């Protein structure tokens, strides 16, 4: 089954929006207070959840037609985005361990994609 460009575009876009959703969740978690009013007012949290839901819709649209061996690795783009967002937004250090882990995970997801043929 050939993978249409639209599927790839959906999945790439999904991974980008998904990574921003993760940023929203982290930002919302930093000032988390477990009361109904505080949770309702936690707009960063809501933005994160919305980002995740939207990215999930785009992902489903993309994965409907297409080879998972090509689409899976696109999803791991979100890990790359998130690594840099975490430095940009939250000042988290970019260590060699994180890069090594990222490399392994990208390779592993690619392998699983090939295994899904």
């Amino acid at each position, binding site marked *: 089954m050939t993978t249409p460009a639209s599927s790839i575009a959906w999945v790439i876009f999904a991974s980008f929006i998904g990574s921003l959703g*993760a*940023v929203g*969740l*982290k930002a*919302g*978690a*930093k*000032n*988390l*207070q*477990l009361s109904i009013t505080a949770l309702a007012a936690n707009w960063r*949290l809501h933005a994160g*959840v919305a980002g*995740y839901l939207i990215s999930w819709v785009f992902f489903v649209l993309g994965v409907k037609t297409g080879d998972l061996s090509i689409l*899976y690795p696109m999803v*791991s783009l979100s*890990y790359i985005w*998130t*690594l840099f*967002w*975490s*430095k940009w937004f*939250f000042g*988290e250090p*970019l*260590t060699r*361990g*994180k890069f*090594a*882990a*990222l*490399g*392994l*995970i990208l*390779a*592993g*997801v*690619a*392998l*699983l*994609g*090939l*295994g*899904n043929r």
Partner: protein
Amino acid sequence: MSTSTLNPSTLNPLNSSALNGPTTAQKRKALWMVVAFTLLASVAQVLIKTGANALNRIAPGAAVAVTLGPLHLHISATIVAGLASPALIGGLALYGIGAAMMVLALQHGELSVLYPVISLSYVWVAILSVAIFHEHMNMFRVAGIAVIIAGVAILGRSGSR
């Protein structure tokens, strides 16, 4: 653990990591919460896939007539069945619980450490695909699972120092 009433972490336990930085125990707990999230998310994915497969057997053009006072609506039968599907509802509920765990985990853990751990859900889905949907385990899947676990293990060590 300090028993002094002047210790900031005893004043607001929920935000102690914002004041002092998360403890190793908190970071380890955060990591395991993300692992739990991946398990919930994978089961949720299987439930949703099961529910969606059932929906695919409904004729695409079929509609359910609904009358709300003066309104006469034709709602797609697929949507009606979807809203009533225990598999879909259960899957979404599990996703919701999992998301709550993820947010709690992010309170004390670094995003760059915890986020890639979500890749474990690919591992669980691969295993479940073989166990439940009778797909085949192959060398790519075995290698992919091993490599992902190795990557997550590195994050586990770097994240709980």
